[in-house]
């Protein structure tokens, strides 16, 4: 019942206390020196050349997209691997099943490769 949630509450409370504590503490104990050099992004080092919020090249999204596609397909291999030995005694079907699955996935990979999906341009 609700008692179950007490550990979660404790963790939440601890996280809040630590995070808020650090924030408050830094405000209390830090030395306050305000001059132009102190306010730059990197106080001792390279001078900032442009704004930090620049737009990422769109290629990153495309690469992320392709990663997700091939990455998620792997979850089908987990249940397959769990029952593999058990079902192998009933014939090789379970083996060829995954080979066919991977072959289709590989066809997709070849398509992507030839279509220039992996080129950065």
């Amino acid at each position, binding site marked *: 019942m609700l008692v*179950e949630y007490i550990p979660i509450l404790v963790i939440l409370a601890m996280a809040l206390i630590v995070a808020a504590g650090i924030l408050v503490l830094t405000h209390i104990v830090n030395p306050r020196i305000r001059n132009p050099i102190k306010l730059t992004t990197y106080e001792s080092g390279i001078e900032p050349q442009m704004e930090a919020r620049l737009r990422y090249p769109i290629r990153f*999204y*495309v690469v992320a*997209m392709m990663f997700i*596609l091939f990455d998620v397909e792997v*979850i089908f291999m987990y249940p397959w691997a769990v029952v593999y030995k058990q079902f192998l005694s009933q014939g090789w079907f379970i083996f060829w099943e995954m080979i066919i699955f991977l072959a289709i996935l590989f066809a997709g990979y070849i398509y992507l490769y030839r279509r220039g999906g992996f080129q950065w341009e």
Partner: protein
Amino acid sequence: MPAVPISHFLILSAVLFSLGVLGVIIRRNAIVIFMCIELMLNAVNLTFLAFSNYLNNVEGQIFVFMVMVVAAAEVAVGLAIIVAIFRLRETVHVDEIKLLKW
């Protein structure tokens, strides 16, 4: 140790699902709308897993696999469409994408 009752899971997933629906209706950025749809799908996944655990039945978990894979395919296609629109229009704001009207 007593388990968390299933009603808690169901209420949580119903709340998440409703938040997703609300987000789709009130947000105007195509990518944010898309994220809200993903939130809806994950709420559904939570429902499936809660029932699967409660009924001691594995079918719900298999269903979650399917939902995850389909959601990934949807992400790919959706992002591709949004990227293509952005290249052509320089906006992903759905209020500005309104050439077609009756």
